[in-house]
Structure formats: structure tokens, C-alpha cells
């Protein structure tokens, strides 16, 4: 133990000296003191070293493998750490790993069938025991155990097994070639749990270990003092944290409950809290709260895109459950949305800039791509959508034979362009719905709006007619994104055979039920294309097929948005990983 502590003490000395030197240098250079504080940790004697964080959805457990909710994953990221995570620019950085394995450094095998992680030496758990490869292997096996119902399952897709080569080397082998093998143990979704603590909590016993699940021992900057399910968590600094002098904060309170607008108020207007998570509120409300001058908005653009999904199958309610919204090998086309001219017209009619202004303000941007980021994957072929063109939309509809009827609604052969448009309940979404309804009205398309409780809409209960998979409507709207920085799995979800239906228990992922043979072929190609220009080009082409066919109509690129108190420094919003990823650097 003592030998482990010694190097840290010797390290601490020069560290402090560096700070002093830089401080003087910075003052000479004429920088404001604020910027120095941004860069370095300068502890002062009388300071508030407690931070209050507000999540309007309360945290239900500290074990992210048992609940994959964003709130649980982010709360757990204060305590548990992965081998590597993504920084705020989307780049991978080692955490418990000594370096990121690549093909160049030999970490990724040439046949792409395995990845070998080298772990940092001398990392200890908060209880003082050493962190070893055994913990990593245990974590992987914990999640892959069939009876756990592990929510991070997807990160371990195609994993064959884990092997501890020695105390600080782990190899993960895959059953198929993985051009991007950074699924397991990368990002806050798959942090390492302590083998010793969870050894009796595997399989069926996993949910019964309440003490362990509510108070996991970790290697991260904080440890759990008290956990109240769905209410509040108290943390205190982990004095064995591997980086000297960190975390700056001594204690953290993470409170849950309420709604987005009142969380924003607690930071921006009353100043009771220092940080509030996920503020999807109308821009004018946010601006007005900002005017109180107590806080600021922090945001980062990841891969969240609010999109319209256009049903390619007939969703008429008079059809029975054996036909309604089912692909049936293309024999059940939508009466008018199967016409590409109509879909193109619907997209052309939408003034996306207006949607951004009314519902998102600076926390949203117009996007014409379903994969808007990272930059290497963002296509530039669809920028035409930025300018709405209702005249062109009308022309297209006229050309396709859809002519306005007596009531102003276009029709052809007795089929009226009348759309049922559904989304989940959320005041910003209902605003967007109303705006789009009016835009479509101007080109002669009638719209009926419907909003469904989020728990039902995204719930996936096969008995419910209102889920987004059932899609008993013509158009639906929601936001989705992908984990990490590679869109392979995200886009593979839209292949033809993934159309939801009774044969796959409505678990399919191709909501629009749109089919393109070229797209399906590219999915297979992408799965074996190594990281590089060729991969980027294939992914962009796939994005273009989906967008140009208007199966999905991208609307808004949404930022992860939170609020921080002005006194709280060091917050760097990270849309690629846990928002609280650098909480050890937060200071005042």
C-alpha cells in the first residue's frame, strides 16, 4: 500500500510548482485571473466545495447495467469509470486504460477479431484494493450473463469472450471482424464494476443486491454516501482517486424530480442549484431566465436529430391488425406517402429555420442529414433542404396529379392528402407539430395531430396501438441518436427486413418501413470496412439514400443542453458521453 502511495506524493510537488509558475507567467502576459482558474486547480481556503446538481428525472439505481437510462448512466459516471471515454470533441481518451488500442500500436488485431487493452498501473478502488484485469473480465461476464437483462448488451454485440492476459492486460475477442472494436468498456455505458463487490450478484441475483447496486465501489472521483432511489444521492470525494489534487469538489448532491422548466429556474433564477440537466424548454423561457444573470447555458452538439418518419405502409384504421402498417413484402403501400413526389413535397414545404427559432433557439440547428456528426460522417449532399420551397412543393404535387379539391386539400383518384401525425407529449414537440401542420396546409395537405404519453409511445408494448413501432399513423416524429461516434449500428437498423411486424414481435427498427436494395447492400459493406475514408464515404452514401428517399425527414440537430451557475467553472458539455464526465475538474 505505502509503495503505491509514494509516487503520488512525489508527483504532487512538481504539479503545484507548475501551477505557480504558470500563474505568474499568465499575469505577466496580461490574462484575466478567470482564465487561469479555467485551466488550473487553484484551491483557496474559504470556498464552497459542494456542488448541487439537478436532474429532472430522478435516478433509480447506481448500477448502469440494470437500468440503461441516461440519468442512471450519468449518475454512475461519478463513481464508476470505463477503460476509455469520449471527450467533448468526440475523441476517445484513455481512462482506466493506459492508451487507446489501435492497429498501429498493435492493440487491435489485423484480422479485426480481437482488441487488447493495457490497463493503467497502480489504480485502486475506493476501498483501497487494486484494480486489475480481473475486474474488467468480471464486468464483461456480468453483463453477458443471460439472466441479468443487461441494458448495455448492445455494446457487447458479437463478443466471443474476455481474457485477462496478465494483471493489467485484457483481450476481448469477437466472433466476426470488427472494424470499430470500441464497443465494450468504452463510454459511460459500460464502466468497470468491482469483481470483489459484485461476485455474489451475478445472474438472477443481480437485482437482489440492493446495497451493491445503490452503492457501487468505483475508481471514479466520487463515492456514494447515501442513495435514495428516485430522489437524491449524496456523494463525497474519493480520496484514493488516481489523479492528485482532484476532485476539487468535496461533496456532491444529485437531486431528481420535477420538470425541465423548473430545473432551469432553480439554476438560472433562484440560484439554489449549480447545474441542471437536459433543459428542453422553449427558447424564450430560457432567455428570460438567463436575464436574471445567475447562470449560463452549456451545450454540445452530438448526434441527436429530431426527425419525421414517413410511413411507407398503409396505416388506415379500417384495415385489420393483419394488414395495418405492415410491409407484407411491399404489397401494402401507403395510399399517397408511397409516392416519392409527395414525400419530397412534404419535406420542401417545411421551414426548418422557423422550427428552430420557435422551439429550440440556440440549442438547435437546421439539419438536412440524419447523421449530422461527427464531421467525417456528415454528408454535404442534401443542403438544399435549408431553404423551404413551398412553390416547388406545389409544382411537384401538381405534376404528380394531386390537385386541390373544393376544401383546399389535394386529392387524386379519391385519395385525399390527409395525414395523421403523431409524436410524444412534450410542449416543444407540440409546437413543432402545429407549425408543420400549417406549413403543409399551405401546400394543400391536411393534418390531424396526435400526442401520446412518452411512456406509451416509446414503451413498445405489443398490445398497444400507440407505440412508435406500431406506427398506426402516417407520420411520426421523435429524436434519436447513436452511442459513441460510429453510426454503423444506428444505420443498420433501417434495413428492409427490420420493418416492425408481428413476425418480429413489433421489435423491428425500420420504422418508416422504407426499402432500398442499395441501402441494404451498403449496410453489409460498412460492417467490414475499416475506419478511414472508404468507411466515411459508405456511411454518407447510406445517409443520402435514406434522406433523399424521404423515408426519414431530418428536421433539427439538437444539442445536449444544461445550465450551470456562473460560479461553477470547468464544466465542459459532452454530447458523446456522460455530461458529468469531467466532474473532477469542476471548481469555483
Amino acid at each position, binding site marked *: 500500500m505505502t509503495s503505491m502511495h509514494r509516487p503520488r506524493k512525489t508527483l504532487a510537488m512538481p504539479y503545484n510548482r507548475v501551477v505557480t509558475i504558470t500563474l505568474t507567467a499568465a499575469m505577466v502576459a496580461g490574462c484575466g485571473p478567470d482564465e487561469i482558474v479555467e485551466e488550473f486547480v487553484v484551491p483557496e481556503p474559504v470556498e464552497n466545495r459542494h456542488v448541487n446538481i439537478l436532474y429532472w428525472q430522478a435516478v433509480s439505481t447506481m448500477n448502469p447495467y440494470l437500468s440503461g437510462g441516461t440519468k442512471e448512466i450519468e449518475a454512475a459516471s461519478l463513481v464508476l469509470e470505463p477503460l476509455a471515454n469520449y471527450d467533448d470533441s468526440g475523441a476517445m481518451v484513455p481512462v482506466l486504460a493506459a492508451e487507446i488500442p489501435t492497429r498501429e500500436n498493435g492493440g487491435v488485431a489485423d484480422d479485426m477479431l480481437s482488441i487488447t487493452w493495457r490497463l493503467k498501473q497502480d489504480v485502486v478502488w475506493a476501498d483501497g484494493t487494486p484494480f486489475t484485469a480481473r475486474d474488467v473480465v468480471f464486468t464483461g461476464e456480468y453483463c453477458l450473463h443471460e439472466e441479468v*437483462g443487461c441494458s448495455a*448488451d*448492445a455494446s457487447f454485440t458479437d463478443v466471443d469472450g474476455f481474457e485477462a492476459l496478465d494483471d493489467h492486460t485484457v483481450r476481448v475477442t469477437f466472433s466476426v471482424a470488427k472494424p470499430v472494436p470500441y464497443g465494450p468498456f468504452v463510454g459511460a455505458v459500460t464502466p468497470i464494476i468491482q469483481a470483489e463487490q459484485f461476485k455474489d450478484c451475478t445472474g438472477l441475483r443481480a437485482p437482489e443486491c440492493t446495497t451493491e447496486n445503490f452503492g457501487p465501489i468505483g475508481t471514479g472521483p466520487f463515492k456514494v454516501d447515501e442513495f435514495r432511489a428516485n430522489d437524491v444521492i449524496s456523494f463525497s470525494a474519493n480520496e484514493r482517486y488516481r489523479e492528485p489534487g482532484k476532485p476539487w469538489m468535496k461533496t456532491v448532491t444529485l*437531486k431528481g*424530480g420535477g420538470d425541465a422548466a423548473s430545473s432551469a429556474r432553480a439554476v438560472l*433564477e433562484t440560484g439554489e442549484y449549480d447545474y441542471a440537466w437536459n433543459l428542453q424548454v422553449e427558447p424564450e423561457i430560457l432567455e428570460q431566465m438567463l436575464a436574471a444573470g445567475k447562470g449560463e447555458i452549456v451545450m454540445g452538439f452530438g448526434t441527436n436529430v429530431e426527425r419525421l418518419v414517413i410511413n411507407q405502409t398503409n396505416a388506415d384504421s379500417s384495415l385489420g391488425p393483419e394488414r395495418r402498417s405492415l410491409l407484407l413484402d411491399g404489397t401494402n403501400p401507403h395510399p399517397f406517402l408511397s409516392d416519392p413526389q409527395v414525400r419530397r413535397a412534404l419535406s420542401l414545404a417545411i421551414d426548418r429555420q422557423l422550427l428552430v427559432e420557435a422551439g429550440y433557439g440556440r440549442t438547435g440547428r437546421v439539419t438536412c442529414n440524419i447523421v449530422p456528426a461527427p464531421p467525417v460522417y456528415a454528408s454535404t449532399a442534401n443542403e438544399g433542404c435549408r431553404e423551404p420551397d413551398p412553390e416547388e412543393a406545389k409544382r411537384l404535387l401538381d405534376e404528380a396529379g394531386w390537385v386541390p379539391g373544393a376544401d383546399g386539400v389535394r386529392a387524386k383518384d379519391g385519395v385525399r392528402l390527409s395525414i395523421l401525425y403523431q409524436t410524444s407529449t412534450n410542449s416543444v414537440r407540440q409546437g413543432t407539430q402545429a407549425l408543420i401542420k400549417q406549413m403543409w396546409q399551405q401546400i394543400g395537405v391536411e393534418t390531424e395531430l396526435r400526442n401520446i404519453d412518452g411512456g406509451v409511445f416509446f414503451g413498445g408494448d405489443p*398490445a398497444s396501438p400507440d407505440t412508435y413501432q406500431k406506427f398506426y399513423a402516417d407520420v411520426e416524429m421523435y429524436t*434519436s441518436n*447513436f452511442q459513441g461516434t460510429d453510426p454503423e449500428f444506428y444505420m443498420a437498423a433501417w434495413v428492409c427486413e427490420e420493418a416492425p411486424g408481428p413476425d418480429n414481435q413489433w*421489435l423491428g427498427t425500420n420504422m418508416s418501413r422504407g426499402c432500398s436494395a442499395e441501402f441494404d447492400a451498403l449496410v453489409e459493406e460498412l460492417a467490414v470496412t475499416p475506419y478511414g475514408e472508404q468507411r466515411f464515404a459508405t456511411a454518407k452514401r447510406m445517409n443520402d439514400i435514406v434522406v433523399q428517399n424521404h423515408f426519414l425527414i431530418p428536421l433539427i440537430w439538437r444539442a445536449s443542453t444544461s445550465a450551470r451557475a456562473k460560479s461553477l467553472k470547468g464544466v465542459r458539455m459532452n454530447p458523446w458521453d456522460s455530461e458529468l464526465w469531467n466532474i473532477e475538474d469542476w471548481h469555483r
Partner: protein
Amino acid sequence: MIRYITRRLLFAVPTLIAISFAIFALLDLAPSDPTGQLPLTIPPETRAQIRESLGLDEAFPIRYAKWMEQFFVNEPLNLIERAFDVEIGDSDSRTRVISYATRSPVVDIIAERMPQTLWVVGLSYVVGILIALPIGIVSAYRQYSWFDQVGTFVSMVGFSVPTFFTGLVAIILFSVMLEWLPSIYDTTHRVTDLASFWVQIKQIIMPVMVLAFYNAAQLSRFMRSSVLDNLNLDYVRTARAKGMRERAVLLVHVLRNSMIPVVTMIALGIPTIFGGAIITEQIFRVNGLGQLLIVAIQGADIPMVQTLTFLFAVLIVGFNLIADVLYGILDPRIRYD
């Protein structure tokens, strides 16, 4: 009376079993799903596995029977064990009612939530009654006086403006503009001395008043109308004619006879204290039983909802019985046998 109570209590057992079955069936039919709130990045196959690990793929009767066993046998045994520090049978293999969301025993979470709910909702109920009864009596006694008019106006506005609005106005006024009171309730706060008691008072004052205002509005209307009904009855005239003092007439005779609808209201209201106040708890983040229930409903946490609503049903049945007994005491002419 004793016979009546015994009969009612015996009758309560099948009633409660029927209620528990109805609740379970309802929750089973409802379209929400425990994986509904997970991020969309989690693929459907994983969701199916999660559902399976929760036991949702088992048949309805099996799940119901399991809950019955856990709730009526295992949990009480567990309580007894904890209370008397003994071990009955094989306590390790007894399964408890486990929440889908937190994967922890439901009963423990309910116990954790009880203090804040009793503080806020319970106190608001007491305050509400204390405001409502005098207002109701005075506005009936001095019908159409300015006091009555103001009372009517305030209570009608109080009832027609929902708590999500009064709560918001209170926060903007007292937390944002005046900065007197906190808008977020701290459930970890412990009262140890005078100063911490003062902090507690400050943090409960807004939710308590908002709720009390709403409850009082309703109750005072029933009180007023009931007193009005009685003031014109013959026995009041007789009592006055006999030279009884006005105060005695009002507080002894009229009040007692006007209490029946009010007792009903109060008895119906007490179980709702334990049901929590969903909206008010959300606004002020009191995170009591109301918030627990709504979060559980939204997340389709069936064991949690089932247990909470069943406890709620027990209280309803119990307090309705108490109300019936009180009717008999208030008005001896009411006979049950």
C-alpha cells in the same frame, strides 16, 4: 355497533382482494412498458431481455399469485423479523416485492418516502381543515355578509385554479423575486435544533400552503352549505326560543348536525394524504409518495404501483368504515343493525 364493525371488517377482506385483482388486471392491460423510458440507443432485443429478467413474460395469474405471496406473506414476515429481531423460517429464500425501476424492495422505498409526505401533505391537510371549518361556519352564519362574499370568492378561485399554477406563482413570488423561501425541498434535511427546524419550516411552507389552500376551498364549501341547511331547521328555532346562547346553539347543535358531509370529505381525504399530492410534490420536488406513484406509473413499475395503490385501498376502506361509525355517533338516529 360492534357487530356492525365486525361484519364490515370481515367484508373488507373479499373487497380488498377484489380491489387488488382489479388493480393488477388494470396495470397489466395498460399499454405502458418498463423499458419505455430508456434511451432509443438501446436496441429492441435488449429491451426484450430486460422485460424477461423482470419476469414480465410469465403468465398473468402467475405474476398475480407471486405478488400476493410476496405482499401478504413475505413482507409481513419480514416486518415482524425486523421489529422483533427474530428469524422465522428460511428468510433468505423469501422473495420480496421488488420494484422494476430500482430493483430494490418496494416496501423499503415507501418507508423512506413516508416522512416527507406526512410532513407536507399531512400538515397541509390539517392546515386546510383548520382554515376551512371556521370559514365555512362563519360564512354560513353570516350568509351574504362581506365575510361570506370574500370567503366564497377566495375558495372558488382556490378550487378552480389548479395547484400547478398556484405553486408556480408562489415560487416566482417567494423564491425568484423575494428570495425568501427555497423552491426545492431537501429530503435529506434533519431537524436537530431550532435553526434546522426553522429551515424545515421554510422549506415546507410553500407546498403546505398551496395544498392547504386547495383543500380548504373544497371543504369550506361543504361546511357552509351544511351549516346553512341546519340553521333553518326547527330544532334551532326551538333552542333559541328556549333562550340558549347563540354560541351554544351554533357550536353545539348546528355544528354537530352539519358534520356529516364534512366528515365524509375528511375521511375520504385522509387516504389521499398517503397517496401524496402528485402535482404539488412534483413542483416543489418533495419526492414523497405522490412522486413515487407517478414515476412508477410512468415507468410501468407494476410492483410499485400495485403495492402503493393497494395500501391506498386499505386506507380508503378503513377510513370509510371510520366515517360510517362517526355518522352513528354524530346522529344517533342513524342505525346500522
